């Protein structure tokens, strides 16, 4: 297993404000798979994503990424882990506002010694003509594509996507999902996508449903629907 999550528990707060968000989650994801994590608001899906990404800690349990027990890493080691293995895509893009599209991608190109070719990335993501524009000059979809390119430029083994289409309209969302599919096929990047959009579950290899901090469903799709055919 590329990703091994074993009985992880996570809680917040104390006393009256104590909340147990993850109540013993165990799952595993193979390398190269796209996995959708679905669930209602407050179910713990983003928390699960953040813990796998090393952005949040757990109370107990184990998380192994490519056999690295990330729960035992210190802050510096976690930074290195994220630098070497992960890419992130967020709901609200989080691009650097006063850098151009290309420069935003180059921000992460700097982090790796073996980046992918930036022009190819621009091409793949349809950003070649927009490369000198600033985020404020782009549409939501274009900004998200830029964010994806930024995340991918360092050729991460694992791409974590937190509501990548949450701020986009239908058309843009489809385009993003098609891109995700394309990248997965081209680069074999393992992807975890947290989403409210249940239609996505048809295009992914694995579906994990979380409810009240526990996995309610965890299955593999035998037949994948192309992203271009998704309807919601």
């Amino acid at each position, binding site marked *: 297993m590329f990703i091994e999550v074993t009985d992880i528990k996570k809680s917040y707060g104390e006393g009256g404000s104590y909340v147990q968000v993850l109540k013993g989650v165990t799952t595993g994801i193979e390398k190269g798979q796209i996995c959708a994590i679905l669930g209602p608001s407050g179910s713990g899906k983003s928390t699960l994503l953040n813990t796998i*990404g090393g952005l949040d800690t757990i109370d107990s349990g184990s998380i192994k990424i490519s056999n690295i027990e990330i729960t035992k890493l210190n802050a510096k080691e976690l930074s290195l882990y994220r*630098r070497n293995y992960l890419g992130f895509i967020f709901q609200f893009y989080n691009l650097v506002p006063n*850098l151009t599209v290309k420069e935003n991608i180059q921000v992460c190109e700097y*982090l790796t010694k073996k980046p992918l070719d930036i022009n190819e990335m621009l091409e793949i993501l349809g950003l070649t003509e927009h490369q000198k524009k600033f985020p404020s000059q782009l549409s939501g979809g274009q900004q998200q594509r830029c964010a994806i390119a930024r995340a991918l430029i360092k050729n991460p083994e694992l791409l974590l996507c937190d509501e990548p289409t949450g701020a986009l309209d239908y058309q843009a969302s489809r385009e993003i999902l098609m891109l995700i599919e394309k990248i997965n096929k081209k680069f074999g990047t393992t992807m975890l996508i947290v989403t409210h959009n249940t239609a996505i579950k048809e295009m992914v290899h694995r579906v994990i449903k979380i409810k009240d901090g526990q996995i309610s469903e965890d299955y593999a799709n035998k037949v994948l629907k192309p992203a271009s055919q998704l309807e919601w």
Partner: protein
Amino acid sequence: MILNKRIIRELKENWVRYGALAFLIIFSLGLVVSMAGSTDVVNYTIDKNNKKNQLEDGEFSVYVPLTENQQLELEKMGAKTEAAFYVDLPSLEKSVLRVFKNRNNINTIALEEGRLADQIGEIVLEKHYAENHGIRVGQSIEVGQKNYQVTGIGTVPDYSNVVQNVSDVLADLNQFSIGFVAEAEFNQLLAGDTNVEYNYSYKLDGNLTTSELKEKLVDLDFDKTKVANKYMNEIINTIEKGKNDLSGGVNDLADGTQKLTNGTSSLKQGSNELADGASSLANGTDQLSSGLEELTNSNATLNKAAADIFQGMIAQANSEFENIGIPVTVTGDNYSSVIDSLIKTIDGSDANAVIALKTMKAQLDSYKAFKDGLRAYTNGVESAYSGSVELSAGADGLYQGSEDLANGVNTLSNGSAELNRGMGEFKSQISNFINDNMDYQYVNLITFLEAGDNQRITSCKSDAAINKNSALIAGVIIIALIAYMISVFVIHTIDKESAVIGALYSMGYVKKELLRHFMILPILIVTASAMLGTVLGFALIGENIKENVAYYSYPGYSMVFPPYLLIYGVLLPILIALLVNYMVINNKLSLAPLKLLRREKKQHQLANIDLKEMGFINRYRIRQLLREIRGNITMFFGLFIAILLMVFGFSIYGSISAYVNNVASDVEYNYLYLLKYPMETAPNDATKAYTESLTADLYLTGGEMDVTIQGIDDENSYFDFPLDGEKNEVIISDSVANKFGYKVGDEITLSDNLEDRNYNFRVKEVVNFASGLYIFMDIKDMRELFGQEDYYYNTLMSDQELDIEVGRIATVITVNKMVAAARQMFTMMYGLVITILGASVLLFAIVMYLLVKMMIDKSTFSISLIKVFGYNEREIKKLYLGTTFYTVALSTLIAIPVSKMIINQIYPYMVSNVSAGMNATMAPQSYLIMVAIILSVYAIVNYLVGRHLKKISLVEILKERE
């Protein structure tokens, strides 16, 4: 790192903000570096000049010039001396020019133009005097009613502060200066004027200390017959007269006692003889008395016999009458009348009868006379006897008395002989006493002053040093403030891009990389500004130094670039910025990536404060203020520093104004004459006083400062405080109290460095007297304290100018001169005051504008939101700019009094080198002006930020995601 490309763009986008900060840094550093640098330039120039022109180690003055041997002796001991005699002569526009002869080895003249005077009728003038009076080389000037040609213009190191007296508060460059003539010319002046100060400069070669030199000078004798000064001669004669009178008086007394002795000896002899005589007399009278007693004893017998004889004759006469048949009976009492009657009866008829009757009568008369006579005789004998008894008694008494007298006179004689012997011893001892104590070794030394205590030499550097230290301290504070302000703006950026930073952390950026990135901009700004500011500072040295150059007298300055100032101007701001920004930004970037992603902000407990039932508008404002507490606190401190500078500026102005006014109002007399050689009789229209100069320890600098102690009496109409009290009680001026920190009841010690003596006093009262540093006491007590005669005085005060021989006068102080000198301070400090006030207003405006704008920027989302809700511009301004008013009001209310307290504490240090006590005074209207300035700046900033508020569009709310 590609991320760094955003730095220039960030700078361009916020050029106003960063430009203003850079401007502040450049301006502040420019000021500070120019002030500190000008001090260094002054110090360097002075030190260089002092070395080149052989500045003295000290100077001293004497009554009689040293002999060549004495000077050689001193040189052998280790003190090279050079005569620096001078005369003060009247010159242009009632000014006084102190004329020296050219110097050879010590305190030599640094010429700026022309050449030294080498002929009679030539003179070199001090440069400021020449400039102020429009005199150039080649022109002519009248000095002491003689015309001189100006051959050169220059300066000397021992008169860099060209004050007439070392104790003068300020120099008046128009009214007093110095000039140098050739030796021949000076000798002519010496011959013509006896008011010469025999001043010497000295340099020590290390083999002799200052105190050893002073001791030696005190011991040096001088030939009092060679005193040329007629007034000094008067004094010598007066002193010698006293000694002669004493000696003569003792001699007269000795002669007198000798005569007394001789006289009493004669008297003794006489009294002895008198006693002998009285003894003889007593014996004689005793014998007389005895004899008379015997006679007296016979008196009755004699009288009876005489009476019997007379009765017998009467009987015979009766018998004869009976015989001749005349029927008369005569008695002793009637015989004369009877016989006369008979004779009358007979009358010519019987001449024989008549003859017989007459013969009878005659016989009876004679017998009666005999009888009466004998009676009288015996009565006399009896009286004589009584008298002789008394006489004898008296003679006995006389004898006794004369014996006593003789004894007494004997004693007297013996006593006067002893007195005479004692007088001889007394005379001998008086002689010894006169020889021992009145053989005056006239101390030739009048004054002794080390260079380090000489205001003429030291005040230029010490004045500049105070400005420098103050500027450097102020600079550090301002740079720290600006560095912190920059960090606040960086924090604002980090907050704004919090999610982006979280995303970068997520991608694998480490804190070190981001910290380095976010520190680049502030460090770049500070570095560039610091360099520019330092360059500007050095460039402004010329401007800054103008006042110093215009006031103090030294050759043209040489620029220096002291390394420490380069470090201070460039490195120190960078270090401060590094430190401050590192601490602040590091703290911000230490948040967990997830918190950054979620834009979680630390909620201060203050922000959650329960505002109870407060109205909405105020509640909104307070929440806004609390949310921007960091910015508001920064603004508070920024405004505080600006107000501190403003208070400082106004205090300087107020302090000098108060000083000028007080000098004019506190001094009642118009003229004060300090006399070197007082007259025996003072002019009628002058009031006498006694003045001495002592030193007191100045706790502010650890050094010493001259104070004037003045003895006055109750009749002095120029002072209205009572002088009764203990002998050592003094009344000090408020100037002294302020300068030295004395209070009523304090025990103070003043020193006479010339005599190496300390005097202890107790402060009885503090009175208003702004001019100089004065301490007052009863003149009688003062005379006693300083060992002067009962009538001694050396100071005259008057309303009008007095006609006093110039040679007697040490110095004349007039109220007009004092006020003019005080006003000079305005000229010197005006530029500084304007600069400080300008800097404070700029700082105030920039700090307020930048921070308020930043706080508005941070609230763009909420402002946009409430615009969408329908709030109009006025209401939005009220909500967002109203909070600024709270901060400005609070900082003003706190900063003004606190600043005043701070300035009150540090101001005495800043004027520690001024020979007057000056408080940091602010006139009431200054406070009003300050508040007006603050409100005006606030209004302008409010207007500008208001315009920015207007520009926030409603669509921000749609773009921004929180």
